[in-house]
C-alpha cells in the first residue's frame, strides 16, 4: 500500500522538526521568563544554575510528558477507530479513559504509592484493569446478536462514561479533603505531576503500544473493508482485535494514570492525520507524532495564556475537541 500522498521521508522529517520546535517553545513558557538562549544553554547544563533547575527539572519533564501523553492517546484513538471502523471512536468518548481513571483512583485509595518504582508500575496496571472493564461494558452494551452495532457504540460509551464518573465521585468521597483536591485536579487532566520517572514509565508503555500495533497496520487496512472481507483475505480477525483492544486500552490507561483524563486527543489527531496518509501504518506513526505536537502546544498554551494561572489541559482539549467532534459528525451525516 502506498504510504503517503507526500514523500514519506519528507513528511516524517518535517514533523520531527515541528515536534522539536514545539518542545523548545514549550520550554520557554512559564512563570519565570527565560530567553531562548538561556533555555538552550540550560538544556546543555551550562549557564545560570537556577535556569538549569527550572528547565531540566521542571519544564523538560513536563514537556516530554505532554508529548508522550499526546502521542499515546492519539495512537490509542487511531487503533480504536480502525478496530471499530468508526472515525468517531476515542478512548475518552468510549469511556476507556474514565474506566482507567477509576482504576487509578482505586489503586491510590488501596494505598499504592503515586511515585517510586512500585507506583509507576502498579498504577498503570490498575488503570489498565479499569480501562478493560470499561471497554468490556461498552462492548456488551453495543453488541446486538454477537456483532457490534456502530450506532450504539457511542451511546454505550456515554453510559459507561457516566458510570465511570459516578464511580470516581464515589471513590473520592472516601478521601480526606487535601487528597481529594489533588485527585480532582489530576482527574480533570493535568501534567503538573510530571517527573523523570513518569516520563520514563510512559515512554516504556509507548514503545510497547507501538510495537504491538504497528505490525497490525496491514490488518487494519483490510478491516476497513469489513471484518468478513478481512477474514477472507487471510487476516486472523479475532486475534488482531484482541491484541489491538488490549494495546489501545493499555496506552490510554498508561496516559490516564499519569495525567488524568485528557479528552478528544485520540479523536481529533487520527482524523487529522488521515488527511495526510493512506495506509494505517503511516496513520499510526503520524498520529503518534501529531498527538505529541498537539498536546505539547496545548500544554504550552494552558500555561502561558493566563500566566501565572494555569488552565486545566483537559478543559482546553475539550474546548477544542467538542466543536471539532460536532463538525466531524455533521460531515458524516
Amino acid at each position: 500500500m502506498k504510504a503517503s500522498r507526500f514523500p514519506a521521508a519528507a513528511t516524517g522529517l518535517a514533523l520531527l522538526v515541528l515536534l522539536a520546535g514545539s518542545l523548545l517553545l514549550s520550554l520557554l513558557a512559564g512563570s519565570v521568563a527565560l530567553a531562548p538562549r538561556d533555555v538552550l544553554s540550560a538544556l546543555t547544563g551550562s549557564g545560570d544554575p537556577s535556569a538549569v533547575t527550572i528547565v531540566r527539572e521542571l519544564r523538560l519533564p513536563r514537556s516530554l510528558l505532554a508529548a508522550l501523553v499526546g502521542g499515546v492517546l492519539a495512537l490509542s484513538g487511531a487503533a480504536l477507530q480502525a478496530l471499530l471502523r468508526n472515525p468517531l471512536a476515542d478512548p475518552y468518548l468510549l469511556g476507556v479513559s474514565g474506566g482507567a481513571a477509576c482504576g487509578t483512583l482505586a489503586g491510590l485509595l488501596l494505598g499504592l504509592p503515586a511515585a517510586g518504582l512500585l507506583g509507576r508500575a502498579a498504577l498503570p496496571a490498575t488503570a489498565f484493569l479499569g480501562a478493560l472493564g470499561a471497554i468490556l461494558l461498552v462492548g456488551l452494551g453495543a453488541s446486538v446478536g454477537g456483532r457490534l452495532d456502530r450506532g450504539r457504540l457511542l451511546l454505550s460509551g456515554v453510559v459507561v462514561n457516566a458510570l465511570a464518573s459516578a464511580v470516581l465521585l464515589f471513590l473520592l468521597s472516601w478521601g480526606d479533603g487535601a487528597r481529594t483536591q489533588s485527585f480532582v485536579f489530576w482527574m480533570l487532566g493535568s501534567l503538573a505531576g510530571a517527573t523523570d520517572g513518569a516520563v520514563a514509565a510512559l515512554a516504556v508503555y509507548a514503545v510497547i503500544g507501538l510495537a504491538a500495533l504497528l505490525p497490525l497496520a496491514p490488518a487494519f487496512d483490510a478491516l476497513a473493508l469489513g471484518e468478513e472481507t478481512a477474514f477472507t483475505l487471510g487476516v486472523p480477525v479475532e486475534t488482531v482485535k484482541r491484541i489491538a483492544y488490549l494495546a489501545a486500552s493499555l496506552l490510554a490507561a498508561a496516559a490516564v494514570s499519569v495525567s488524568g483524563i485528557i479528552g478528544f486527543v485520540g479523536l481529533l489527531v487520527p482524523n487529522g492525520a488521515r488527511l495526510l496518509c493512506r495506509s494505517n501504518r503511516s496513520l499510526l506513526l503520524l498520529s503518534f507524532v501529531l498527538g505529541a505536537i498537539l498536546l505539547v502546544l496545548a500544554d504550552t498554551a494552558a500555561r502561558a495564556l493566563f500566566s501565572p494561572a494555569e488552565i486545566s489541559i483537559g478543559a482546553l482539549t475539550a474546548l477544542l475537541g467538542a466543536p471539532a467532534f460536532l463538525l466531524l459528525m455533521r460531515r458524516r451525516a
Partner: protein
Amino acid sequence: MQLSEVSAGYGGRDVLSEVSLSLPGRTVVSLLGENGAGKTTLLKVLSGILRARAGSVTLGGRPLDAVPRREAARRIGYLPQGFEPLFPMRALDAVLLGRMPHRGGFTAPRPADLVAARRALEEVDAAAFAEADLREMSGGERQRVLVARVLAGEPEVMLLDEPTASLDPRHRLVVLEALRRRAAAGAAVLLSTHELEFAAAADRAILLAGGRILADGPARETLTAPLLSRLFGVAARVVPLPDGTPLVSLSRPVE
C-alpha cells in the same frame, strides 16, 4: 469446491438445510432465490466465514477447516454485499488489498501486485477511478472496484454476493464478461443475483428455496416457467431464444 449435506445458520436456527452441491472450475454459476432463502448464508459457508453446523465443506478434496487460512484466502475470493466506506480509501489501494493473501501483510505491494490490481480495474471498466476515493464514487462505480478487488486476488473459487446489484446494464455485462474470462481460465464462479437475464447468461443456475436446493443445472433446464413460478411465487413465462438462452418474463405475484 464441494458442499455435502450442509446445514448452517445463526444462533441455533438453520438457514440452510442439507445442501449439497459442487463447484467445478471453468463454470459460472448463478444462485437464485427469494430474500431470506439462504443465498448469502450459502456463500458465507463456502467462504469459511460461517461454519457449517452439519455436513462437510471441502476445497480440492480437503475439509475447508483443515486448509490453512492464508492458503484458503489465496484460493477463495469473496465479495460480501453492501459495503459502506467510512474512511478515505483510494480505489487502487482497495483493489491491492485483494493481493494481500499473496504477499502477506508485512511487505509492500510488488510490481506483480500492482499489475494484477490495475488489470482487474481495467477488466471491470474502472481503470479511470484508480486514484479516486471510494467514498466519493457512485454506488455502481464502487461496486465495480470491489469486484476488481476479488479479481485481483486471482482466486480459483470466486464467491460474489449480488455483484451486479447496483450496476447499469452495460456494466453488468462488463462484469459478467470479466467473470466468464476468469472461468474460462479455470476459476469456479458462484454469484447470487436477482437479475434473471444475468442468471440466464450463466452456465448453470442453482435455485434456493427455504434453505434447500429446489433445482440445480444448466440455465436452460432450471430457468423454466414452473420452477421460477415456484421459486419466486410469481407468474412466469420463459421463451427460448434462437441460441437456446432462456428469455424470462415475470408478471405478477401469485399465491
